[in-house]
Every structure is written in structure tokens, then in C-alpha cells.
């Protein structure tokens, strides 16, 4: 069965964990024992039953009422599995949020319509980052409408603000809006009778329909194999690697990057057994006609493909630490778990993830975005993020310090 991944976005206290807690209970995706445990904890700390406690399993989280780290929950609904990835909402936990946002393609943002909450800067940053990293569709769950008398105008106000914002940051992918009350389970699974003015699907069915339409990332046809290591095989040396896209067969010619030479596939091993071909998404062991220039971090391309290896390119980044011109040789990018040294980083423009405004700038402050130019110490195979996500996204580091994330333009 295919697991459908959904990233949850939004400010803390706007109700993400309550949405998931109630979905887990009402779909029967969590055992009675776990619900009992959450009930017991609610009693112990003298609160009414809080479904969020099913998600927030650390004691600190329960006490402080926030999700510290990425949490996953599997929900079975209509014969499918939906894996919800819940990420923390605090600004100082942005680093962890990006760990969460990095693996979900369809996102649900929970925005509270309650007075004083609304469409916050933090929620905007979440949406911005998710859109930078390949979010293909967005569902906006407008929550806490029970506090606002299930008033359609309050719902529409939030929708307006979100539409305006998405236009500013250039997010042109499908968007749907669903009015809910997570705490009272209104419009989560069953259509709410309290909001007769809403003629769309409840949240879970909206998610299901979005996943059917936009859930599966289109796989490229061009061959891209990331080499993890070289090892001794049965008779010859083999390259262990992951086929990111395309499919390969014995005899096929490949171009090795960054080395630039071509070679051919002699043998393919799939799951330990000899095979004639291998599709995208599989880990292979390859015997090659010439393996001498192949090493960890090499990328094998179809021989007919243009060479992608380069040492200068532009990238869109989201900064964790302040970014400005850097030529000290101490920074590197981490891509496919390889550290690639950077000779020079130059900031070209700054982009506000809150308003979407863009301006010429020599620096990017923390929690903001921008465009940078990178020069590597030596050539490395990177690609436009839109063409091959795996070879077009990276993290920036200075030593062990995490500076930000980027996508190749």
C-alpha cells in the first residue's frame, strides 16, 4: 500500500496536534490503550480530554503545550494510509521544522480564526519554506471557527489573506480552503451541520482528493544514480548506489560526473540478486566496465544527457544564520550526505518570507530568504531543483553550524 505523506504547517496553538489527535481517534488509527493513556494524562494535569496528547508524547511537550520535534502519525482512511508529519511552530525551532517539511509533498496548514491568532508571520514562513521545497498542493484548514460562531465571514477573511499572500510569493499550485473546528471534530471527517454555508468536502476527503490528484511526484525519465560507496563484489568491484530517476539495464552506457568519462553497466544486483534492469527508486550494486573514476558522491547519468557537473550556480536560500559574502573557505554545502566545499558565497537579493517582497541586498538575516551565487572549490553534479529535486537541494554549513537551506535555480 502506498503511504501518502502530508506535511502539517502552522503556528503553535492553532490546533495541528488537535486535528491529528481527533483524526487518529475517529478513524480508529490508534489503539484504545493509547487513547486511554492520553485520557489519563489529561486527568493528571487537570485538563479536559485533549486529543493532542496522543501526538505530543513527551512530558515536556504536554506541560508546555507545544510540539518540540517532528512527529509522525499514520491515519488509515478509506483504504489508504496518510502519514501526517507534524512540525513545531516556534521560530527558534525552525531548524527542526525544516527537517519535517523536507519529506511531505501535499501540505495542510492549520490557521486559527480565533481573535488575536489569525494568519501569523510564523505560519507564512512555514508556507514559504514548504513552497520552496516542492510542495505541490496546499490545503488551508481554517480552525477554531467554534470560537467565532461558525461565521462564514471570519472564514472568508482568512481565505482572502492567504490568497493574497500566495500570490505575492508566486505559489501557483492548487489550493483548497476548509473551515473546521478541530476540538469539536467539525468538518474533519463528516460534513459539519454547523457550517451549512460551506459546500466543499470535509478535511479528510479534501486531503484524499488532493493526494489522488497531486500526491505522486512525477519521476524523471533521465537516468540519475547517486553513488554511495565502492565495495568488493562477487567477482569485481561494485558501486553501491540509488537510482533517483530513469531506469537502467545491463549494457547501458553511463556518464560519470564530476569525472566526465563514460562507462557501461556490466552487471546489476538488486536486493542482493543479479538482475537485468533496475527501475527508479531502487538501491543497486553495479559492476561497471571502468569503475576507476567512480567514487562516493559521483552521479551516473545517461550517456546522452548533457553534463550537469558545474562549479558556479545561483540558489534560493532560507537563512537560519545571517548570510553574507563569504570567501574564507570554511563553508560547505551538504548534498546527498556529502560535504562539498564552497570557495565563495555572494548574496544577490533578499526576499521576505512574510510579505514576499524582494530587494537587492548584500545580506540575508535569519529566518529570511534570498538569492545567492555560489562558487564551489571544484565541479560537482547539481541540477535545477525543479528538474531533479534530489540533486537540486542542499544545506549550508560552516563547520558544524547549520546556516540555512537552498535550492538550485
Amino acid at each position, binding site marked *: *500500500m*502506498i*503511504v501518502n505523506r502530508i506535511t502539517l504547517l502552522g503556528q503553535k496553538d492553532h490546533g495541528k496536534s488537535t486535528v491529528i489527535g481527533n483524526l487518529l481517534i475517529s478513524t480508529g*488509527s490508534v*489503539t*484504545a*490503550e*493509547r487513547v486511554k493513556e492520553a485520557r489519563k494524562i489529561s486527568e*493528571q494535569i487537570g485538563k479536559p480530554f485533549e486529543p493532542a496528547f496522543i501526538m505530543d*508524547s*513527551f*512530558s*515536556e511537550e504536554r506541560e508546555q503545550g507545544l510540539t*518540540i*520535534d*517532528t*512527529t*509522525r*502519525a*499514520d491515519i*488509515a482512511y478509506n483504504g489508504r*494510509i496518510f502519514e501526517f508529519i507534524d512540525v513545531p511552530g516556534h521560530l527558534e525551532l525552525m*531548524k*527542526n521544522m*525544516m*527537517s519535517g517539511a*523536507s*519529506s511531505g509533498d501535499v501540505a495542510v496548514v492549520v490557521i486559527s480564526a480565533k481573535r488575536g491568532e489569525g494568519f501569523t508571520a510564523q505560519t507564512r514562513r512555514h508556507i514559504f519554506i514548504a513552497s520552496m521545497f516542492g510542495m505541490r498542493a496546499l490545503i488551508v484548514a481554517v480552525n477554531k471557527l467554534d470560537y467565532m460562531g461558525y461565521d462564514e465571514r471570519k472564514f472568508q477573511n482568512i481565505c482572502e489573506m492567504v490568497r493574497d499572500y500566495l500570490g505575492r510569493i508566486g505559489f501557483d499550485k492548487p489550493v483548497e480552503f476548509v473551515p473546521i473546528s478541530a476540538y469539536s471534530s467539525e468538518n474533519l471527517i463528516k460534513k459539519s451541520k454547523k457550517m451549512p454555508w460551506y459546500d466543499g468536502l470535509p478535511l479528510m476527503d479534501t486531503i484524499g482528493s488532493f493526494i489522488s490528484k497531486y500526491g505522486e511526484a512525477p519521476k524523471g525519465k533521465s537516468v540519475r544514480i547517486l553513488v*554511495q*560507496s565502492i*565495495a568488493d*563484489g*562477487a567477482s569485481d568491484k*561494485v558501486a*553501491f548506489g*540509488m537510482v533517483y530517476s530513469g531506469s537502467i539495464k545491463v549494457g547501458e552506457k553511463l556518464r560519470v560526473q564530476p569525472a566526465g568519462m563514460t562507462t557501461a553497466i556490466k552487471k546489476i*544486483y538488486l*536486493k*542482493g540478486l543479479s538482475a537485468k534492469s533496475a527501475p527508479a*527508486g*531502487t*538501491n543497486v*550494486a553495479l559492476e561497471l566496465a571502468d569503475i576507476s573514476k567512480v567514487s*562516493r558522491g559521483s552521479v551516473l547519468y545517461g550517456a546522452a544527457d548533457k553534463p550537469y557537473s558545474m562549479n558556479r550556480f545561483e540558489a534560493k536560500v532560507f537563512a537560519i544564520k545571517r548570510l553574507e559574502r563569504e570567501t574564507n573557505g570554511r563553508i560547505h554545502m*551538504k*548534498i*546527498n*550526505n556529502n*560535504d562539498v566545499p564552497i570557495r565563495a558565497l555572494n548574496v544577490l537579493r533578499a526576499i521576505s518570507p512574510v510579505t514576499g517582497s524582494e530587494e537587492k541586498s548584500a545580506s540575508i538575516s535569519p529566518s529570511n530568504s534570498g538569492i545567492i551565487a555560489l562558487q564551489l572549490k571544484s565541479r560537482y553534479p547539481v541540477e535545477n531543483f525543479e528538474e531533479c529535486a*534530489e540533486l537540486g*537541494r*542542499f*544545506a549550508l554549513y560552516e563547520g*558544524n553550524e*547549520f546556516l540555512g*537551506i537552498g535550492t538550485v535555480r
Partner: protein
Amino acid sequence: MMEQDLDKLEEKSIFIIREAKEKFGNIAALWSMGKDSTTMLAIARKAFLGKIPFPVIHIDNGIDFPESYKFRYDLAKKWNMDLIVAKSEIKQEISGFSCCGANKTAALRKIMDEYKFNALIVSIRRDEHGIRAKERYFSPRTKEFKWDYKNQPAELWNNYTSKLDTKGHVRIHPILDWNEIDIWNYIRENDVPINPLYYSKNGLRYRSLGCTHCTVALKSNARNVDQIIKELEVTETEERSGRQQDKEKEYVMEKLRALGYM
């Protein structure tokens, strides 16, 4: 019980195990002889063309079930494992926090020090316990085995941490995404040899294996893998409900994990 795509799970596990082997030269795997760590070893054999390319550690407190010892002997031989048996002492406390915490962890520390392992493959799964849902695939531990879960390294896509406190080690979790039912489906599809304690005898079977002192058998008539899978499809009980350590106190798993327990 949530079933997932076994091919995808297996591919991700292979990628992680290969990555860990390449990144950390001196790596070992923990093997409890239970279904999860045995499945992980079966995957490792596929990843490395039939060989398990790292030592396999069993922490032996001397009070495991006799069936487990026979299973260990047979499979270690069949799969040609480089097996390290870490003897742990049993002190007066007989179960839970003090036993698993102090005794098993102490034995593991001794072995880690002796062999200077810088990475350890541990076959935990996210669905076992709420705390485990917070884990990373690559998770650093200090020399004292402490897990700083509030300050975990970012794990963006397949950029796992290589940051390592020189005296600590990194825990590798290749089957973190698997659910209990996936493990059994995989065992069925791949004929993975399995500890006989999982099968029902006299109306009882073990669903999760600890040692003789802290594991309780559950009522079950499942005598083979097919019947276990059928049983799991309808069960309402938690997998670790036969494990006393999980229940002793509030947040005991959290404490055990912060202390370095698996």
C-alpha cells in the same frame, strides 16, 4: 494495523544501512534475537550481496529464554555472523527501569568502549512507542549514551548527521519507518528465520521479546507467521503490552532512552 509498501520500506532501509556503513567505519549492530533486529539483519544481507559486513552484538544477561539461545547459535552460524556476546550482570532488581537501564546499558557501554565503535545500528520502530516517533535515522549519543532529543541535528532529505562527539557514537535506525505488521509481512515474504517464542504454545505467545524476567506472554493461538498476521489485523492491544518496563512509571521509556537504552 497499518500496512505499508514493503519494497519502499526495504529500499529506504538498504540506503540507510549502506550510508551508515560508508560514513562510520567502525560500526556494529545490536541483535536481540527478536523479529525486528533479525529482519534488519536480513535486509543488511541483501544490501551487501549476502554478507553482514559488521559485527553483531547480543547483550546477554544470562536469563534469556532457552529457545532464544538456540536460535542465536543456529542463525549466527547460518548467516556467518561476526557475533559479539556482551555479558550483562543481573542485580537484585529484577525488571524494568533498573534492569534494562543499568544492567544492559552497562554491558553495552563496556563493549562500545572495548571495540571503539562509533556507530550502532538499532532496530527500533516509530510505531512502538510515542517517544520513538521523535527519533532520527541517524541519532547522536554522548559518551554517557545521553540522547539530547531537544537539540537533534536537522535531518534534511537524506542529509543525515555526521556530527559526532568524538567520544560518543551515532545510533542508526534503518527500520524506523516500519510498523509491526510490515515486519511480519516481510518475514513471510522473505522467509526470514524467526525466534520460535513468537509462536503460540499452550495458548500463549510472545509478541515482543525481553528476557525471562520482564516479558509476559499474551493469550494467542497463532502458531505460524500467517496466523500472527491475521491476529495483528484485528488486535486492539499495544505491541509492548507484555513488557513491564513500559508501564512502571510515567515516562519511563523517555528516561530509559535519555539514559541510552534502546
